[in-house]
């Protein structure tokens, strides 16, 4: 099996604290094979359970995904591996879609939150006006 090492276009804010191997110089990598692009592992630096568990959730919602999971190889390494196996589509595309879905979910949550805050402020202002009328 031929493993393909391709730099993944995820920006890395700064070099890691303890770089001691070639892998750690790259911000992200995809491990897979040329012949079968439906099974790949994506290695992300400076990520942890927060991102990985969330993207795992969205990947599980996708019917094209037959297997997905993540693992942190070592707590001292600031790295997370995300495994994606699909029914036939390229796993990179599936992961991109999952990230997109996650982004939409976050936007939805943020907009809902903002709307709730603004509604709360409006209702509070109205209540203050009513109190002044009584006085």
């Amino acid at each position, binding site marked *: 099996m031929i493993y393909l090492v391709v730099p993944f276009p995820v920006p890395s804010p700064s070099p890691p*604290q*303890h770089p*001691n*191997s070639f892998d750690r110089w790259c911000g992200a990598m995809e*491990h897979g094979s040329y012949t079968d692009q439906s*099974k790949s*592992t994506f290695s992300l630096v400076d990520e942890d359970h927060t991102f990985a568990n969330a993207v*795992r959730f969205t990947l*599980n919602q996708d019917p094209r995904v*037959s*297997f*997905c*999971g*993540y*693992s942190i*190889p*070592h*707590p*001292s390494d600031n790295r997370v*591996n*995300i*495994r994606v*196996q699909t029914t036939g589509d390229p796993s990179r595309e599936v992961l991109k879609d999952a990230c997109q879905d996650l982004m939409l979910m976050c936007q939805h949550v943020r907009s809902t939150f903002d709307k709730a805050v603004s509604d709360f402020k409006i209702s509070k202002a109205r209540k203050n006006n009513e109190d002044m009328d009584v006085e």
Partner: protein
Amino acid sequence: MNRARTEGITFTKEPFMEDTGPRKIKNMKFSTLSESEISKIAEVQVWKGSYYDSFKKPIHGGLLDPRMGPANKSLVCATCDGNFHDCPGHYGYLNLALPVFNVGYLSTIVEILKCICKGCARILLDEDTRKKHLKKMRSSKKSELDKIDFVKVRVIKDCSKVVNCPRCGYINGSVKKLPASLTIIHDCSKCRNYIVEELDSALSRMKDSRATTNVSNRILNPFQVLSLFKRMLDEDCELLYVAERPEKLIMTNVVVPPIAIRPSVVMDESLSNENDITERLKNIIQANAVLRQELQESTFSSKFLDGWDILQNEVAQFINSDVRGIPFYMQPTKQLAGFVQRLKGKHGRFRGNLSGKRVEYTGRTVISPDPNLKISEVAIPIHMARILTYPERVTHHNIEKLRQCVRNGPDKYPGARMLRRDGGHSWSLKVLCRKRAADELRIGDIVDRHLEDGDIVLFNRQPSLHRMSIMCHRARIMPWRTLRFNESVCNPYNADFDGDEMNLHVPQTEEARTEAILLMGVENNLCTPKNGEILVASTQDFLTSSFLITRKDTFYDRSTFSLICSYIGDGMDPIDLPTPAIVKPVELWSGKQLFSIILRPHANMRVYVNLTVKERNYTEDKKIKDKKIEWKTLCPNDGFVYFRNSELISGQVGKVTLGNGNKDGLFSVLLRDYRAHAAASCMNRLAKLSARWIGNHGFSIGIDDVQPKEILINKKDETISEGYRECDKHIEAFNKGKLELLAGCDAAQTLETRITGVLNGLRDTAGKVCMQTLHWRNSPLIMSQCGSKGSSINISQMVACVGQQSVGGRRTPNGFIDRSLPHFPRKSKTPAAKGFVANSFYSGLSATEFFFHTMGGREGLVDTAVKTADTGYMSRQLMKSLEDLFLHYDYTVRNAGGSIVQFCYGDDGMDPAGMEGKNGKPLNFERLFLKSKAICPNDEDDEILSSSDVSKVVHEKLSEFDMSRLAEKGVFEVGFSADFVESLQSFIKDNAKLTEEGFTDEHSQNLKKFGQRISGITRKQLDVFLNICLSRYHSKKMEAGAPVGATGAHSIGEPGTQMTLKTFHFAGVASMNVTLGVPRVKEIMNGNKKISTPIITAILERDDNANTARIVKGRIEKTNLGQVAKSIKVVMTSRSASVVITLDMKRIQDAHLNIDANIVKESILRTKKTKLKPEHIKILDIKKLEVVPQDVDRSKIHFQLHYLKNLLPTVVVKGIKTVDRVVISKDTKAEKFRLLVEGTGFREVMGVEGIDGRKTVSNHIHEVRDTLGIEAARESIVKEIKYTMVDTHGMNIDIRHMMLLADMMTATGHILGINRFGISKMGKSVLMLASFERTADILFQASVRGRDDSIGGVSESIIMGIPIQIGTGMIKVKQRLDPPELPHGTSPILS
């Protein structure tokens, strides 16, 4: 090198260039030095006792003369012009005013003086005896040890008897060294002849003489001894086994050693710190100067004698500062070490510097566990990685990496510390301009770079008990401060994480790295060579997780199952999800399926594991109508683990499957069937999964887990009350004297045995009830079931009942008068009064119970403290005696001298580390058969083989491997051992027969066919099975060059540290206390002639009759006349006086003895003390005798009669004198009896009528040797060690190691102990013996005897720095040379 570079060829290392000649130390010869030889090797005569002059320069002729080497770093040698590092040092010498004894040879000097005439210096033997002894000494058949023994036993003994010299008639008395002195005296006080008598009579007539001189004792001073020695003949020296002239044993000058071994340290302007040797030499010079002056001043006075003694003492202390005989006023206030003190002991030159050398590139720090690492990795702190380096040579593959390292320098990781050019120049990168150095880096340079990931390091934990204590790991550079590794590797290191430290070593050459990773890598050492069991295995948390994962009620949905599968390989492995165990309404996978994925993550991995294991919680098989029903896969507790083609069919996985020590476990099967990497990978996956799974799942313990329930409390109270009642019943019977006795025990012993049995049963019963009532989710219960920590006893003690405390293997002894503690009444024997703890740790111990508990604990602490020294010393002895043995290419085991110790290692040449079966068998046929059937399942059309067909196929297959003609006759001897072939054939025959016997004609045809497809054997299956067995057998042969001696020593010594120091074991009968444990092993290995508990196990010809056993017992057991006589009286009448003996015939018949008056008469006559003759004893009738004393005066007859009356009861009339006691032992299962004989007398016991001598054995090895020969003794050693370490302690050591030890002890035809006496007789070299024990004595004796040793063994190779000729060191390169053209005869002239 320049030529190679100009041609464009580059080398990664220097090419080999032939030296002018081979330079290797092959031999070492020991000798003594004479006065002229010392003067020749010396460069300067030292005569001044001062060091430096006023200009801070060493004084010529002084102790720091520059001709002996530079005294410190700033000076230069005046002889070879070398500096402090280059000059090897040169000798000086010091002339003594008078000769003195060399204290190391003092015993030898005394021995020689005992054998020579003090007048004419000839040997004290007549001419015929002298020639006879000389002929024997010159015989080539005698070995060196035999010659030494001959001199001591025969020559010295014969010479000591001679008083008058046969040649000159001089009177020679005994010669001895005065105790607590360095003086030798010649004692003639016991020799008298006419000359001395005349002198005495003459002296007595001088009445005016006030003092009488003692002419008997004379002091032999060194001058006189030197004169005698010079006159000795060479033949006499040869006869006394002195290799050179004996005058060399006396010192007339002293060698001054080079300054290199005694350097001087200048403290400040006027002081310097001098070595002890230098100080000693200064004292000698001063004493010598004083003596010389005294000699010059007064020639005829005796004042110089005191000075001479002082000089003798100083020179003696120069050699050995601990020598006895130094006067008190000369004891120095400051202890200065002599040469002997430099050499001997644990910190001496041999054991501290030569055998154990200091090394660089080493680190040491605290260890921590890390389940995220692979088992072959070790995490190294980055601080350590910056200090430890590896010299990497620059090639075009790594030049960019190394340039970056050079730029980073020594402080920034990853960097480098040193740079070495191709030509040999080296720079430190601390101060160098690193950027330019990096740019100028060329291929061929060497960069000492920091450690990086993947480097090969050695990892070691002390004490290093076996070869897995130091293994090779791959480095993994990580932050933080500890060394970290996977917990699975804790077992071989015996490491825990309570503050342990471990050592790290970095090999510095490519060859060293290759050897380390191949021979010492963790993956290549998963199994212990002790017995072939796997040692690197899952432990603790890994077992708990596996146990919980594989429960029947564990299910996961797709997302959870996928996540957990990703943990296994860190998401890097492709995973093929199996079909869900439950499809509707929701897809669910079971925990057992998860475990199957650990074994085989995806379909392309061709690992098919087939095994069956019964775990700890397997339910006991039960019987229905005398048929044994096995639960197997239907076990209610799910304790039957069944893997078929890597799928977990049933069973919860626990310690028996995953832990160490089981040859049928999962990792063992992976290792045997699929190589070490498969087992290691599986362990890594399991470690990853377990650490993450249990982190999410959680596993904790609380007080609720050890809280007993009401049912348990009531049951426990009931059980204990019942037990107490039963004990009280026994005590009451004992007090009334009605207790039925056990065999060989008196009433007190019987009572103790009964009570102990009851009380032990109490705790067992409480434990069982406890285990039944605990909830299945109980954490301690889970841990004990899967084997991660604790056992049912621990839980029982916490929850139910602690149980009986034992001290010395018995109930608590009486420390006060008639009681154990003052809390109890006297003579109390109740359970509570003798250390039974009825409470549990949960309910708390009472005061007396707590005290009893601490007594038992204290014994454990004492045992641990004392045991370490004993077993450590035992391991050292074993290693020293067996270290040279290794396997040659002809499969013989030989020592360093080439002597054969074993013709075939272990009798079959197999490697113990590769044995798959029980008891050291090469293969496990049951498991391989199961594997063959799983790989090749039966089809409908396959034909089932019958028994005869099976035999034919087996015969054909064996014939293919064996091409000799013997195969036609059914004898397969080439390549396979007879045992293996026989067991293989019988196994296959049994399985084939099982198929045919299982079904009869009564069953229907379809049922028979179905049954055959399940349990029948097809041709394909049989072929696969046979191919696996026969090919795998050969792969388990021990490799040539293997250090079987060192491995054997480890395999016996390392389990010794696990044994308890004192073990009280009752061999069959309660009253027999047999020595076991470490003391017994020491007895066996030291070859002790007297052992503490000799026991002969006698087998009866008729072993099913108790009466027969008693009769034979009576024949063996020693019976005195006093035991069988009713009365022994003195009868005096007017005519005669005699002693009348009346036998107690009833008692004789009860004991089944065959004794009558005739036998008693013979016994009395056989006793020498009585001095009686046959006419003195009359037989009155069958049970009466009359003994008449000898004819003596009437006045003494009364005395004689009473003397006989007191003596006769001690006469042995029956049995063997050396036997103390005989106990009848009963085998309860087979209703058989045998005799256990305490004492010696093996030959006599074998010859007793009724004893089957061919089956009778003894545990006394020397007795076996004397009676049955050396081969029987060798077999006895194997059996005794196996019984002590394997059978009793459960140590499980392969028998091949014990065979090797026994063969080593008996190879010379004598039993040689594994101690300094036996090792000396094994023909070891001087350096090896000196590095073991008694360093100084061995070196001095080697000099006297002129030993000439070859440097071939392990110890001497290490000491001399020569590669050891074992293992990879035994390979040699042979150069092909063209054969020389020999000139033929010249052509004839006439042609």
